[in-house]
């Protein structure tokens, strides 16, 4: 047996180790290079993507800059146009005028005591004449056809407005009562969302209609909130057969001036809250002279008898609100009045007057459908609903004559901003057992011009 050489064994082992030692690092180097290459390619791809994104961002920025420059240019042009338009606006003559007003016609069908009928409605022309920024004369007539076919004309208001400063105007003449909001601001048929006034808010109701006298009024911004006021002194109300009427009487019949007014503020731009009052003394009612003759002597005696009786104190207060945001038009009003001490025992006509009170209120909501759908027809629709009550206490006959609850539901179709076709159903519920409740179907076309 050949003797094993220790040197050869050692050399073999050394060779094996060396081979092993050199072989492993070579494989590892190959793997790292592949990974590095792969990573490098990834990075190159990422860099390429980032470059593309950067280029896109640069393009976008350039576009935005161009748009911004264009917008600034347009805004500049618009500003110049606005200034130019204001500057080039037609010169106003010192004496200028304008005619406005409204007219309406309608049909009413009832299942109650009144038969269905066409209604001629009203024609209310209003004239405005202005001298510089100093004074405005304005007057509105109401021309109607009576049941008998005759033409009736009344002066709704006829007043001179002296523009004292930005926050104060002095009004003199016959003007609409500042009490509440319906009579002064909402009664024109193209503004009123239903075909008639709420119960108690028309002629013969609790709401004062007009006044003859003087009124100071205006508005002022307190911070960013608007505050408005109206304070009037006038001839005041008169006792009539159906109660107290404030219709703007041409003469004072009791040497006592009535004071009335309203203040309002806007806690929000779209919300107005107001409060009103009226304080006056009322002379007992006198008999109308008999038809066919007028005995001056008897009239003087009657005047003296009436003068000997005590005047009644008539006080009224009210509160109202209006919320007009977007498509909504929501408003409500409350009025309460009291007459006491009229004629110590009984008035000249023999009516025994105790303390009488009246109360009326309504709440109304309308919603213009514009923007609700894509339909032009639906855009012009406006559903509306109103509920109100009118009542009196202190005299049974008077209470039964006037007390009622009224519910209206309607749909308006606006042909333009001031031409409207109104359709409504009105449910009247009377307190008096002798009066039948009735339901009325109303149709009205109104045009404000």
């Amino acid at each position: 047996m050949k003797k094993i050489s220790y040197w050869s064994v050692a050399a073999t082992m050394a060779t094996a180790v060396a081979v092993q030692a050199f072989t492993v690092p070579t494989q590892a180097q190959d793997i790292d290079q592949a990974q590095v290459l792969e990573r490098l390619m990834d990075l190159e791809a990422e860099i390429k993507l980032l470059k593309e994104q950067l280029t896109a961002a640069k393009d976008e920025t350039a576009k935005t800059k161009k748009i911004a420059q264009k917008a600034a240019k347009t805004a500049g042009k618009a500003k110049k146009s606005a200034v130019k338009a204001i500057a080039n606006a037609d010169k106003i003559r010192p004496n200028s005028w304008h005619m406005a007003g409204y007219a309406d016609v309608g049909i009413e069908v009832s299942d109650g005591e009144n038969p269905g009928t066409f209604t001629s409605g009203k024609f209310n022309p209003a004239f405005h004449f202005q001298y510089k920024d100093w004074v405005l004369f304005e007057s509105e007539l109401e021309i109607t056809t009576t049941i008998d076919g005759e033409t009736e004309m009344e002066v709704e208001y006829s007043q001179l407005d002296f523009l004292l400063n930005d926050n104060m105007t002095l009004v003199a003449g016959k003007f609409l009562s500042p009490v509440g909001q319906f009579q002064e601001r909402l009664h024109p048929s193209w503004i009123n969302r239903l075909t008639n006034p709420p119960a108690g808010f028309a002629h013969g109701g609790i709401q004062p209609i007009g006044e003859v006298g003087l009124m100071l009024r205006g508005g002022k911004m307190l911070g960013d909130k608007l505050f408005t006021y109206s304070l009037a002194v006038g001839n005041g109300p008169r006792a009539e057969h159906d109660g107290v009427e404030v219709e703007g009487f041409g003469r004072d019949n009791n040497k006592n001036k009535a004071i009335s007014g309203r203040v309002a503020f806007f806690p929000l731009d779209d919300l107005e809250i107001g409060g009103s009052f009226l304080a006056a003394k009322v002379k007992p009612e006198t008999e109308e002279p008999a038809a066919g003759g007028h005995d001056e002597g008897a009239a003087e005696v009657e005047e003296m008898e009436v003068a000997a009786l005590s005047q009644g104190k008539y006080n009224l207060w009210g509160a109202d609100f209006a919320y007009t945001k977007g498509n909504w038009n929501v408003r409500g009003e409350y009025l309460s009045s009291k007459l006491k001490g009229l004629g110590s025992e009984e008035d000249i006509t023999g009516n025994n007057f105790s303390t009488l009170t009246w109360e009326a209120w309504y709440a109304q909501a309308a919603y213009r459908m514009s923007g609700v759908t894509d339909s032009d027809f639906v855009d012009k629709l406006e559903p509306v609903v109103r509920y109100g009550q009118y009542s009196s206490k202190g005299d049974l006959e008077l209470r039964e004559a006037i007390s009622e609850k009224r519910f209206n539901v309607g749909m308006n179709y606006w042909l333009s901003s001031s031409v409207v076709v109104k359709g409504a159903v009105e449910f009247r519920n009377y307190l008096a057992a002798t009066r039948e409740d009735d339901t009325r179907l109303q149709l009205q076309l109104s045009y404000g011009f």
Partner: protein
Amino acid sequence: MKQKREILPFVLVAALVGAMGFSAATSAAGKDKPDPKQFARGAKAWAKTCARCHNMKAARDNTDEEWHVDVTHMRVRANIPGDMARDIEAFLRASNK
């Protein structure tokens, strides 16, 4: 004495009118100078104020002179402050061409 008391309110009002007349005349001065922001203020006030009671009429419905008088009428009726009314008028007169 009673007659004097009756007359007193009218005397006070006359004095007030006299005193305010001067401020009315002076406040009217300088209103013709175009204000670039008046148009925007007027547009905002028009949208906010008029719709409180009625639908807004289009600016083209009236001439400049008619708007001048109409806005004064509404200034009195709705208790709109004078400066706000002038903004509204400027907007309407600039928009009705």
